[in-house]
């Protein structure tokens, strides 16, 4: 075989030599050189095979990699959608901030030193850190992403923009670009609806992971709170891209094409900015007034809801949250204010905090008794200052004989404890549940609290776990003590004594446990009394209270509260119109509900606890005041009360429902009631009254 290949070498074998010695030598050499031919052919054959594999079989894969090497996508940020109130007042928007960039493609081939000096001369005076060296540093820093524009300064002043634009010809590669930054404009001088708006911030690594399918970029803004978070996918829009060809150092070589960004959608809210502002102002005013006597009155929340649709007209939470604080880095003081102060501001107290309802729960007790057929409105109960059943829970006063209307008007504890007893907790539970208490309302805001509606089921679960925990910890304690004692014993007699003692104690614990299991998981009568007057373990969000009043007011249609009326494109084309969502039609008799509404009207009539608030009001308002023990550790039982107020109006043909809480506000009427008055004045276009004048001198209610 090698001989055949040798033929390739030429016609050397023609017997050109005659010398036999030389011929022999030549033959030998020929034999040796055949080895070379084999080696040569093996080497070239191997190389051919390998190259054939690379260029035929593996070709596709390498072509893809080669493309990935050179094509890079540059994102163009989409404009985030605005949010506006029902009348078009813009509450959240994006404002252009002018940034100066240097693009590598632009300065390439030019005099970069000169450009750096000129840029530094223009931007330096307002920002001493900008020097030619600083610009070079920025360029060096983005060495691996040179195809992206390099940020030199953000937030340029108008004058800086003008100077840069004027000298455009001298500054090749310097680009001034508009970049949208989130902005929440104040309304008539005040920041409003901060907790509702929420805010956007840079996406976190965890969010990157969680929303892996949504193609977020590192450093992109994402809604973190409030509507910004709840409606992120509508507001975000779609980033555009610029496709550039880059070289090995990621410097752009040329631009292939642009895909323009699609701006985010615009949310038109159900909120009325005027009402919202009115609610915010009166909340601030009320808190300020209360703080003179009640320094702990720092926080609160109120909601005004349309009873016919569930649309929220205003929603306030205090301490205030200004979303503009979250644009850019958060300093320590601000961060403490939002997260670590007492009370912290970073909570939307309308949905993220649950409060004991106090006397605002009494309409439910009444409804339960009515539904059970145990309440006759004309029947009287005698209030002697405390209920006649154990544990003899006190009333606010001594009301004497009270019928249903008087009991509502005076918020008589004795009357409602008796009605609660008659109705039983199961009936109270059913009515409260029909009206939406102790369950999420389903509002499209993140982080809604569920609250707690206690009943037999809840008690069973809670009591079992309480008894078990107590049993376990006592056993552990005993074992520990016995071990210690056993370690100290000397004689056998002593040991026996310790063991005997241990067995005795164990018996006691076992017996107590059996008793505990009988007692704790069982609903006790006093708990019904507590629940009847809105104390005990029950607690609800302000929004739940508002929606319960709205449902009662409209005759039992429980709607899902909502904040967004419609979603539009940036150009104003309708994307989605939201209509009221009926969650359930309460299975309660219309007559009974009407009776309870009438009872609530009595509250604002002469003799009622909220009479002073609405006696001169042009529209009939039905309401209920509440003063609730906070149930918080460390609070003083006789002084620290939350002030709670619920209302709907007009009584005859209800349109709106209100619920409000002022933490440590003491009386419902003089705290949250004031806010209700201000908001309803605004809503019905009534004459504005001086709220402080409404507070009756030296009055003690409830």
């Amino acid at each position: 075989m090698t001989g055949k290949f040798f033929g390739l070498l030429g016609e050397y074998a023609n017997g050109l030599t005659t010398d036999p010695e030389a011929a022999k030598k030549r033959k030998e050499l020929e034999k040796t050189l055949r080895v070379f031919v084999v080696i040569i052919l093996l080497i070239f054959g191997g190389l051919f095979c390998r190259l054939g594999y690379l260029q035929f079989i593996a070709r596709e894969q390498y072509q893809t990699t080669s493309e990935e090497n050179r094509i890079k996508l540059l994102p163009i940020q989409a404009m985030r959608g605005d949010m506006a109130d029902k009348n078009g007042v813009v509450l959240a928007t994006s404002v252009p901030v002018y940034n100066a960039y240097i693009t590598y493609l632009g300065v390439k081939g030019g005099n970069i030193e000169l450009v750096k000096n000129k840029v530094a001369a223009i931007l330096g005076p307002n920002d001493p850190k900008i020097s030619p060296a600083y610009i070079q540093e920025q360029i060096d820093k983005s060495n691996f992403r040179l195809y992206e524009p390099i940020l030199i300064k953000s937030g340029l002043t108008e004058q800086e923009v003008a100077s840069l634009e004027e000298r455009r010809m001298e500054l090749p590669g310097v680009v001034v670009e508009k970049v949208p930054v989130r902005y929440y404009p104040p309304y008539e001088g005040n920041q409003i609806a901060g907790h509702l708006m929420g805010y956007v911030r840079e996406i976190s690594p965890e969010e990157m992971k969680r929303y892996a399918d949504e193609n977020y970029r590192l450093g992109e803004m994402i809604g973190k709170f409030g509507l910004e978070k709840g409606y992120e996918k509508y507001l975000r829009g779609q980033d555009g891209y610029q496709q550039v060809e880059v070289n090995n150092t990621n410097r752009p070589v040329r631009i292939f094409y642009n895909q323009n960004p699609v701006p985010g959608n615009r949310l038109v809210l159900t909120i009325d900015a005027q009402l919202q502002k009115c609610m915010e102002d009166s909340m601030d005013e009320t808190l300020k007034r209360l703080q003179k006597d009640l320094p702990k009155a720092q926080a609160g929340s109120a909601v005004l809801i349309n009873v016919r649709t569930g649309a929220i007209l205003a929603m306030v939470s205090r301490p205030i949250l200004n979303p503009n604080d979250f644009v850019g880095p958060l300093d320590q003081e601000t961060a403490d204010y939002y997260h670590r102060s007492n009370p912290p501001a970073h909570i939307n107290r309308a949905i993220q905090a649950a409060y004991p309802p106090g006397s605002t729960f009494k309409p439910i007790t009444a409804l339960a008794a009515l539904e059970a057929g145990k309440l006759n409105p004309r029947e009287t109960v005698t209030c002697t200052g405390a209920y006649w059943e154990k544990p003899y829970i006190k009333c606010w006063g001594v009301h004497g004989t009270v019928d249903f209307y008087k009991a509502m008007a005076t918020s008589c504890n004795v009357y409602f404890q008796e009605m609660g007893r008659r109705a039983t907790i199961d009936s109270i539970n059913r009515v409260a549940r029909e009206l939406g208490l102790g369950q999420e309302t389903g509002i499209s805001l993140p982080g809604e609290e569920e609250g707690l509606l206690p009943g037999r089921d809840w008690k069973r679960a809670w009591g079992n776990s309480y008894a078990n925990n107590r049993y376990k910890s006592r056993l552990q304690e005993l074992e520990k003590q016995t071990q210690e004692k056993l370690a100290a014993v000397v004689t056998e007699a002593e040991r026996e004594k310790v063991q005997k003692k241990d067995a005795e104690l164990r018996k006691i614990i076992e017996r107590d446990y059996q008793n505990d299991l009988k007692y704790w998981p069982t609903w006790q009568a006093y708990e019904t009394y507590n629940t009847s007057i809105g104390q005990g373990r029950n607690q609800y969000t302000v929004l739940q209270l508002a929606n319960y009043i709205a449902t009662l007011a409209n005759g039992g249609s429980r709607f899902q509260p909502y904040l967004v009326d419609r979603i539009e494109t940036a150009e104003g084309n309708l994307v989605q119109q939201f209509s009221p969502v009926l969650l359930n039609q309460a299975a309660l008799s219309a007559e009974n509900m009407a009776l309870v509404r009438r009872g609530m009207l009595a509250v604002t009539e002469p003799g009622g606890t909220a009479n002073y608030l609405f006696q001169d009001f042009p529209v009939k308002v039905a309401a209920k005041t509440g003063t609730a023990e906070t149930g918080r550790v460390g609070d003083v039982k006789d002084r620290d009360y939350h002030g709670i107020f619920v209302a709907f109006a007009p009584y005859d043909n209800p349109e709106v429902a209100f619920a409000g809480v002022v933490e440590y506000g003491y009386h419902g009427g003089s705290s949250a009631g004031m806010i209700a008055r201000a908001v309803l004045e605004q809503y019905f276009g009534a004459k504005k009254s001086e709220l402080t004048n409404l507070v009756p001198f030296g009055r003690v209610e409830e």
Partner: protein
Amino acid sequence: MDLKHVRNIDFTLIVVVGLLLAFGLVILSSASGNVGREPLEYVRKQVFWIGAGTLVIASIMFFRYQTAARYAWHLYVFNILILLAVLVFAEPVKGAYRWIPIGGFQFQPSEFSKLLLILTFADFLAKRKDRLNTFKDLLPCFAFVAIPMALILKQPDLGTSLVFVAIMMGMLLAAGANKRLLAVLCGGGLLVVALALYGHFAWHWPLPLKEYQIQRLIIFLDPDMDPMVSGYHIRQSLIAIGSGGLLGKGLYNGSQAQLNFLPEHHTDFIFSVVGEELGFVGVAALLCLFLIFILRALRIALEARDTYGTLIVVGVMSMFLFHIMINIGMTAGIMPVTGIPLPFISYGGSAMLTNMMSLGILINVSLRKQTILF
């Protein structure tokens, strides 16, 4: 030079080398377009070195190659001296001492050293032609090569020292050394190297090489192990060649080379540019030219007038063959990265001069082949 020799001239060889040089210049014009101060800077320089090399070939014609044998020991000492000079005078480039500045040029003595080794070792072998049967017989030969090789390893230039081994083995084989012994030595050598490398990674055996050299030796086994540093060259080269496909992306259109993803694309990795821009067609054409060139050289060795002539031609051929195998094998990811250029194609003055001188030696031997005796 006797004019009657001229009819002995090997035109096939000349034409093949001419085609190789032309091919090289064309691909260099593409590969170096984004390297120099102006697009054709490197082509111009390469043309200059080809011209200089042609003059060298022409002047070599006038000497009988046997003259070199007479001054073999002088040349050997001279070889060692220039290699010592490197260690003394050279300025480090990327940590290696290889270049001596002479005039305005940077010379790389290890390139010429290869030729000096061939010319001297051929004489050394020719004299002990029939005494190369035992390991003991081979020991002086090893010592002869080992001295200049050690100096080159010191630079450090692992690639060129490996070329020395290839030259030595090729010449020993041609000189009639015991074939079985050589095969055992080659196989054993590879085994020792493999074992040493394995031992280095498994048990941290010390090796007389820098860590980056070791890394480069083994990275071709799995370039993705370190794709951004030591595996970068091979990965980009494989991408370049593989993405070329059958017809390539077209001259001047290879994104890997033109956008600088492929490093050293005008020198050590110029073959990858051929693969990327001209595809398998270009690669196959180039390989065929090399194959013809090597086989012609083998024929010259066979027809040489004397053993000395045969041996120097085999030395030169072994050198070229090894360069081709290691360089192309490296770009194709089946050989370690050792920094050996592709003859006649890669950019480089010293290498081009050495290649032209080698060609001169081939022509010189072929001119004086035995047939003219009659």
